[in-house]
């Protein structure tokens, strides 16, 4: 009983601590002023990258945490802007009605001043905050950012958007001030709850072996390239997160015609499928594969599909409509520890 009590107490303590401190757990100890910040959208706000509406002006509270000196030093005031490094997803962030996110190298001299210096005259387009004196809290009150994410933005499911911070600040009680805009890389984390979503489609020509009535099995096996569909045919996937792939053939990788019997060798023609780097000849041979996120541009989501005949049609019952249907199921998942890049396999 004591053992269980100890375990559960530890669990509760850990949960309690984590819930009480959503931003950075501790203030950074530094001789100069500075802040870190985290902004997490409420769980009720989610971003589906495939939704035509995207995310429009969602309120995401930003909580800043000031640096502290070893003993009494504190960051007092801060003025900052967000900087999106080149290659960052396109999103718009406003604060008090003004845009506060700028592309790298286009901040136009911001942040310009602190409120104590210009009485707020240049506050538009900047995020400013006064933490107060030594005894005040090290975390700010929530600063409501309005975040807009266009549809189709390449955000990763389950991962925050990491932005840089450009700031000036004042320190007190022995802490040095920073008067020249200083960049802090990866300091701001904005989590907009991107769902793991996925779109997939087949791109290419029909997988048609054509008339194979004169081909013997020996001839087919001797010239596999001749009886293989083009490598340019593929499944195209766009996804914001990793995904699982399953493949299943309606006839267990045999062509047959309407009314044909799968147990009659004369009425079936075996073939194999090459997908995700694997040669599949039966439904039991593939299982489930986990692929890394394909991205919203689909650049990492081209999955070639080739089929190869394994039997000729010379000894088969004539029919113009031999066919089979392969079902490929993609399941978006939130996290995957063993995901591999499936592109081009």
């Amino acid at each position, binding site marked *: 009983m*004591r053992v269980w009590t100890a375990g559960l107490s530890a669990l509760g303590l850990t949960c309690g601590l*984590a819930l009480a401190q959503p931003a950075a757990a501790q203030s950074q100890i530094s001789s100069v002023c500075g802040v870190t910040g985290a902004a997490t959208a409420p*769980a009720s706000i989610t971003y589906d990258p495939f939704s035509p509406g995207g995310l429009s002006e969602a309120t995401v509270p930003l909580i800043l945490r000031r640096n502290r000196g070893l003993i009494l030093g504190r960051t007092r005031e801060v003025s900052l802007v967000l900087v999106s490094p080149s290659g960052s997803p396109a999103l718009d962030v406003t604060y008090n009605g003004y845009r506060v996110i700028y592309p790298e190298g286009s901040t136009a001299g911001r942040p310009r001043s602190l409120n104590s210096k210009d009485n707020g005259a240049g506050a538009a387009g900047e995020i400013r905050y006064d933490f107060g004196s030594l005894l005040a809290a090290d975390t700010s009150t929530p600063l409501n950012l309005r975040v807009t994410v266009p549809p189709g933005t390449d955000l990763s499911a389950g991962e925050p958007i990491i932005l840089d911070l450009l700031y000036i600040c004042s320190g007190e009680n022995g802490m040095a001030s920073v008067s020249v805009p200083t960049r802090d890389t990866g300091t701001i984390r904005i989590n907009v709850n991107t769902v793991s979503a996925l779109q997939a489609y087949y791109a290419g020509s029909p997988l048609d072996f054509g008339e194979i*009535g004169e081909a013997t099995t020996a001839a087919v096996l001797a010239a596999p390239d001749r009886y293989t569909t083009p490598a340019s045919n593929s499944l195209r996937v766009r996804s914001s997160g990793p995904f699982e792939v399953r493949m299943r053939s309606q006839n267990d990788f045999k062509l047959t015609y309407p009314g044909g019997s799968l147990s009659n060798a004369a009425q079936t023609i075996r073939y194999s499928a090459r997908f995700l780097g694997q040669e599949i000849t039966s439904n039991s041979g593939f299982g489930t594969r986990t692929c890394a996120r394909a991205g919203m541009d689909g650049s990492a989501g081209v999955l070639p599909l080739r089929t190869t005949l394994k039997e000729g049609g010379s000894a088969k019952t004539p029919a113009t409509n031999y066919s089979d249907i392969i079902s490929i199921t993609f*399941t978006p998942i939130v*996290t995957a520890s063993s995901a591999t890049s499936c592109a081009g396999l």
Partner: protein
Amino acid sequence: MMALTILISNRIARAAIVLASMSLAVPAVPAMADEVNQVAIYGEVAPRCWVAQPMKVATTNAAVQVPPARAICNQAQPVLASEVRMIDSDGALMKRVPTATDRTAPFSPRTALEIVVTPQL
């Protein structure tokens, strides 16, 4: 015994902390529904017939027995028919000779045996 209990207790507490961390680290972000793509594969085996063991026989001795060539069809019910027809002056098959023709009567030098195999040869 007490030492053992504390040891186990610490282990469980540590496991609980790890579990708590894991559960907090995994964001509560929903995943969307499955996407199923169906791809059809086609093939065709055309009905046809062919001559098995085709051979060209030139014999001068009428007594020699030549095994007849066989037509093979890959369709379940092929149709094989043969008719004797008279040949036109330009070589075209013209007049069908009834099967009930008196076989004792000699054929004209301009007759031919037409073999029709369905679906095709």
